[in-house]
């Protein structure tokens, strides 16, 4: 339901892409010629001069962006698959050799990989769940507050804008014994960052702090879709605040919620900066990104590192696929008509 509809929604309002759209000029205008001839285009393949120049312009305008994106991601990901099939250690470059799937066997039977994978999944699930609840609360506050809306929105944007590494250092010092106010307050006499469970909790906290505002902003866009009349009507029918939230707001916001969840899940899965600064992956707190980086940059083992890169890429693709298929997450852009 998402991919198919994307181009129609992206289309200019005045130019129906197929016969089912409302004919006639739309009030928004649109490129006049495209709109009038759009319906007959599929019947007759001839293009008017205007359409042809429109296409030429469009391709010219899109080409640079498309070329850069493909050159920097498309070709390297193929190259990465090729590297993952090699024995290629930069410390022993002479030993480079095609080894088939041997790297995959090595990674997939390694306990390091599965520990990191489990840690990554745990952080992803827990942090996204907390963010959804906190983000919804923050979105409601930002949307409905009657005093100091500007102040609230501005401060909520601070975690979004701040450099992740900076925030991570702030958390690290806060939880360092003696130096930090939080360590002294909650765990006097111990070092929370040197124990797996408490370190993971702090990593999750740092992640939640930094990204809740982003989640809240996405949810706020969904909140704006909830008609006030509907809420008033529900309230007149005797629905309490909680019922109004569950029965009226959440159903209307569902597409926004799913998009926010999808974005944040994929983003949380690639967690790197926070862990790098907080624990460097010590005490079994590595995420898959940290592990891949360790193999690539510190051990200079391009074969194994690339194998992990490919596996991470496949995991992300799988998560996205599951979201789209299972929950019917609409891709961003496909819910535009709900808005107008």
């Amino acid at each position: 339901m998402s991919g198919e509809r994307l181009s129609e929604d992206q289309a200019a309002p005045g130019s129906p892409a197929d016969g089912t759209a409302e004919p006639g000029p739309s009030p928004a205008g649109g490129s006049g010629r495209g709109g009038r001839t759009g319906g007959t285009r599929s019947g007759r393949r001839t293009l008017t001069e205007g359409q042809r120049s429109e296409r030429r312009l469009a391709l010219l305008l899109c080409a640079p962006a498309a070329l850069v994106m493909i050159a920097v991601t498309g070709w390297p990901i193929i190259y990465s698959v090729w590297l993952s099939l090699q024995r290629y250690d930069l410390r022993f470059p002479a030993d480079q050799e095609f080894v088939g799937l041997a790297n995959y066997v090595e990674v997939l039977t390694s306990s390091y990989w599965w520990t990191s994978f489990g840690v990554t999944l745990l952080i992803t699930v827990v942090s996204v769940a907390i963010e959804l609840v906190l983000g919804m609360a923050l979105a409601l506050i930002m949307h409905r507050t009657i005093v100091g809306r500007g102040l609230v929105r501005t401060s909520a944007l601070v975690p979004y804008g701040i450099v992740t590494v900076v925030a991570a250092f702030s958390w690290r010092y806060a939880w360092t014994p003696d130096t930090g106010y939080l360590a002294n307050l909650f765990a006097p006499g111990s070092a929370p960052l040197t124990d797996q469970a408490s370190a993971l909790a702090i990593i999750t906290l740092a992640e939640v702090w930094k990204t809740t505002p982003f989640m809240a902003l996405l949810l706020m866009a969904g909140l704006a879709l909830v008609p006030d009349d509907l809420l008033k009507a529900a309230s007149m029918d005797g629905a309490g605040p909680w019922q109004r939230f569950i029965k009226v707001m959440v159903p209307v916001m569902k597409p926004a919620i799913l998009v926010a969840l999808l974005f944040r899940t994929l983003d949380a899965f690639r967690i790197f900066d926070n862990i790098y600064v907080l624990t460097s992956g010590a005490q079994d707190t590595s995420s898959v990104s940290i592990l891949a980086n360790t193999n690539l940059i510190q051990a200079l083992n391009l074969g194994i590192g690339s194998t992990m890169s490919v596996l991470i890429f496949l995991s992300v693709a799988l998560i996205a696929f599951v979201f789209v298929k299972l929950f019917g997450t609409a891709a961003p852009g496909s819910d535009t008509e709900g808005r107008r």
Partner: protein
Amino acid sequence: MAAFGGTDTRARKLRWSLLNTLVVVYALVPVLWIMSLSFKTPATLNDGNFIPREWTLENYRSILSTTEFLRALLNSIGIALIATAIAVVLGTMAAYAIARLQFPGKRLLVGVSLLIAMFPQISLVSPLFEIERTLGLFDTWPGLILPYITFSLPLAIYTLSAFFREIPWELEKAAKMDGATPGQAFLKVIAPLAAPGVFTTAILVFIFCWNDFLFALTLTSTERSRTVPVALSFFTGDSQFQDPTGSISAAAVVITVPIIVAVLFFQRRIVAGLTSGAVKG
């Protein structure tokens, strides 16, 4: 009755004020903490007090006198500005076509940029590391600018095409009637109208580039192109007996201030850009 209503709104206002205070505290405490650390003297650095007992500017003086930090700051500013400029220009062109023109392959372009927005960046590190070493781009400004452009283009395209759909396009039609080509209509009529959206996008893209750590860590190896977040994580202090906490905190504050100022001034635009780009675009 009126009096009753009055106390009711006062109670509501109080409740909202409490909630708002909670949000402000949540958002600002970690920032204030790192600021506090940056003003502490070496003797009081480890006292765990939230507010410094003795204030000093020594940490700032020391990082601003090292080339290590100044060079990284220059790299960060230069790389982020250039990447932002290029990404916004390319994104504006593509978003205009997506929002306004009919052409084959539009769906593909939107799909590809969506894919890239969700791409795990670590997957690009090994091939880019190898390719950039071969091409001589490793540890150079262009070597970082290229991936930054790539990963900010989806953000730029979504945000901009959402803004572009709000523009009154009758003006473009009028310009065309007056004999302007589509290209002229774009440059002379639409571009000025689109400026606020473009500006918002530029802020978002700049924040993205400014924030990056993974590429800067893996695609650089010397001061030549290392950006501040990475330089920060490598700070060791002047001697092995000196704790780098103060320097790191001061450097952290220096790179945080511009972002906070931008957020203060452009809060409304940033909120509009993020919400329209992510859900509507």
